[in-house]
């Protein structure tokens, strides 16, 4: 019991530790694809460290919420991540939250992020918040639809059951999974504010979404916010990787199993990161009002997944 909780703790810490690495990896690959050498792989860690020790500057107009938000955002994201099986299946912490709770926790984080954006009372903050809420409003149903497809297949909304069900089935070509996968990928791009929905590296005023909300942050607050978004990216990566390709994840808590699980998941994430970087270099960011079309595609895919599950897989 205690042991399993310890593993859960370890896994949670692993998320925090690995998140910057994934970002670093993606940036590196992008740089390579653009024939640049790019920053070192561990650069994100350095950035975070620097931000953490820097002094904080808070606008006059900011309310206490401004300073509270980073912690909530960070913690909510982290807790959400901690419930997603990374290296080992069936951890007690996974019982705390099923997929819907996970979406809820991310929603909580987003809520405070948006509020923080509006708190200072600058035009950009409000703009960012408004756009973020639009995107999430369109992304969330798609996400849940995709998740429901899996959930209805496994007759359960708990990730553990979904994965183990998938493992038990062995390798099946489920059309519903294909659609759900597509949907989840699109949603992930939108939610983690990656190209083509948002550009994490831009500070060009009118195109920012996520950055616009962080505009006024500095020091450790900024660090927390950045870190949270990195964890979020990792979370989605793991979600996609482990839900659709759960093979290799540790079925028991033996060190060997955990080790294998870790290695395998790192490999999966590396591949995903590669794909993401490639996508971001080949695609261009789209106008804000093209985004709904993009997300409607995601919703459509998710719906198709659900229907094909209902019609093709359960029916008759």
């Amino acid at each position, binding site marked *: 019991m205690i042991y399993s909780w310890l593993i859960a703790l370890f896994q949670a810490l692993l998320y925090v530790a690995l998140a910057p690495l994934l970002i670093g990896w993606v940036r590196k690959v992008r740089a390579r694809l653009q024939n640049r050498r790019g920053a070192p792989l561990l650069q994100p860690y350095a950035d975070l460290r620097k931000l953490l020790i820097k002094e904080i*500057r808070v606008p006059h107009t900011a309310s206490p919420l401004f300073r509270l938000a980073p912690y909530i955002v960070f913690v909510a994201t982290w807790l959400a991540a901690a419930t997603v099986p990374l290296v080992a299946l069936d951890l007690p912490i996974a019982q705390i939250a*099923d997929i*819907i709770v996970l979406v809820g*926790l991310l929603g909580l984080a987003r809520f405070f992020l948006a509020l923080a954006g*509006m708190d*200072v009372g600058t035009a950009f903050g409000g703009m960012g*918040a*408004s756009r973020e809420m639009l995107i999430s409003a369109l992304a969330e149903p798609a996400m849940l639809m995709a998740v429901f497809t899996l959930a209805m297949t496994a007759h359960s909304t708990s990730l553990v059951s979904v994965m183990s069900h998938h493992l038990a089935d062995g390798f099946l070509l489920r059309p519903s999974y294909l659609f759900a996968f597509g949907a989840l990928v699109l949603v992930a791009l939108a939610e983690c504010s990656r190209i083509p929905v948002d550009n994490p590296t831009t500070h060009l005023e009118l195109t920012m979404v996520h950055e616009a909300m962080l505009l006024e942050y500095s020091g450790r607050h900024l660090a927390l916010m950045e870190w949270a978004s990195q964890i979020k990216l990792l979370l989605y990566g793991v979600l996609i990787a482990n839900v659709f390709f759960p093979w290799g994840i540790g079925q028991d808590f033996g060190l060997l199993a955990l080790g294998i699980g870790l290695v395998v998941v790192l490999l999966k994430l590396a591949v995903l990161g590669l794909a993401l970087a490639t996508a971001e270099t080949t695609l261009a960011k789209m106008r804000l009002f093209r985004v709904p079309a993009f997300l409607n595609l995601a919703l459509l895919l998710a719906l198709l997944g659900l229907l094909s599950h209902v019609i093709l897989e359960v029916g008759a």
Partner: protein
Amino acid sequence: MSTHAVLLLAALSVMLALAASATSLLASREPRILRLIAMPLIGFAGLAAVAAGLAALILGGSVTTTLPLGLPWMPWHIRIDALSGLFLLLIGLVTSAIGIYAPAYVRDFERGRDSLTALGGFTGLFLTGMLLVVLADDAFLFMVAWELMSLSSYFLVAFQHENAANRRAAFLYLLMAHIGGLAILLGFGVLAAFGHGFDFASMREATLSPGWASLAFALAFLGFGMKAGLMPLHAWLPEAHPAAPSHISALMSGVMLKVAVYGFIRVVFDLTGQLQWQWGVVLILIGSLSALMGVLFALMQTDLKRLLAYSSVENLGIIFIALGLALVFLSTGHALLGSLAFVAALYHAINHALFKSLLFLGAGAILHSAHERDLEQMGGLLRRMPWTGSFFLIGSLSISALPPFNGFVSEWLIFQAALQAWQLDSGVLRSLIPIASAVLALTGALVAATFVKVYGIAFLGQARSRHVRHARQGALGMRVGQGLLAALCVLFGVLPTQIIGLLEPVSAQMLGTGLPQAGAQGWLWLTPISSETASYSAPLTILLLALIAGIAFWWFVRRAPRRMRRRDPWDCGFAPPSPRMQYTATAFAQPMRRVFGMLFEIDESRPAFDDAAPRYRLKLTDRAWGLLYLPVMQAVEAASRRVVRLQSGNVRVYLGWTLATLLVLLWIIS
């Protein structure tokens, strides 16, 4: 403690409510009576109701009695079972909070010219009506109480009647309430026809043919749905709720709509007997429509109270989706899932009562101290009124269904129920229900957007007008009232297992099955169906959130002692922003308005380039008006215009009518 205590407590509650209205008869002479006696009495009535409700839920079973009033051959029947107990609890909780809040709030009216007697008296009657609806055990008393509820709330809507908008709102409200009441009455007529009696006991005995049962269902759905403000019969709601004084708006939105839900449950689940899955489908469709449209309209509003009213439409839609799921599952023989959806509906009903009242009280506090309902004029209120700000934040989080607050739990349960659709045989239902849940998800996200907008615009940023800049913290009573509700929101969010334990007897009594699994894993773990299927531990969630946040905070503060400097906002290096440069509520909603534009009638006028005094004007109207209400009004107008020709004024024509009538009749009978 015997079951009679329940009756006594309920009676006490009604008595106190009546006493409140009686005492406020003197308020016209001595204004302070309203504040010092009447409103506290309302609060005590609420407490009594809470006690009665809890007692009824805990003791289980049901107590009945009759009062020597009503029709000669049928005295008023009173019955308290688990369902009534639950709604007594709901009414009581909100009412007691309002009892604390109101005294400070009604102070404002002591200076005004509106009759305090009316305010206090009708508030008491309003409460009485709601209590009696829940207690009624025969159609007659039910209808009397029901109409009393509508009528007294109508007077409260028309309370500040010098404002023409309020008068129009009151008219529309009473008209639709009347029609709805008649529909319900006819529904009872059907049941009574087969049950040979107006008391619910004999209606339960009645065995209806499917056709008649469906008729009864349709009438009940029409009537109660109209009261619950389901689309497209919602038109009165966003007009009426904001018009009333804020604590009354809280009662109307938070409690009265739930009484409508109670009535629907009582009639359809309890009295009508054999359920049909088609009804469920109807509920799910209408519910989804209301939820989605409701939240979209809420998102577009800039008047805070209107916005909250529209969001009530949305939440009632969610409740009815859950009820629809319950109907589908029950009628297809999945008792457990049925009771899951049923409990989810009840849970959401309570939650909505709590957070919606909280939000309305918050809006009232703003109105009280800043005399402002328009979001575009607000801003920075969190620093002006920190308590209200914090409570309002809790309310917003709860209504946005974010863990670990109460709104989340109920929506989570609804999702859980919806996701069991795979157990149904009919493929149509199997694919319909998940889509409905997608709508639910979309709704949830939009609600979050709405309340980010509300909170961000109203409480954050900088004040957009002078009187808001100088708003002051409300009186203690008002703060305590909000605090109570906020605490309840957190409580209901953090201890779902216990709450469901409280709700279970209701579904056990109504549907014959509870949720045996819900607390099987211990109070920490909420597992509605089984721990494999889904589990959620709110206590641990909040515990871990608090723990990690605390650790992180402590760690940072220790490692990097607070070096923090205040400065102007950077804002990408533009000039220091002025309040007028902030994003407005209208601007915030603009992307959504553009994406969902086809659903409204938008009348927008942008300023020209060379406009000396540029003005942006936006008018957004409900398509329901053009499609449903105006045609009816025009039809009546046209008909009356034709009919008045009868009164031509010429006596010979009149005589002609008489002669014609005579001849026609004689011809008919021969």
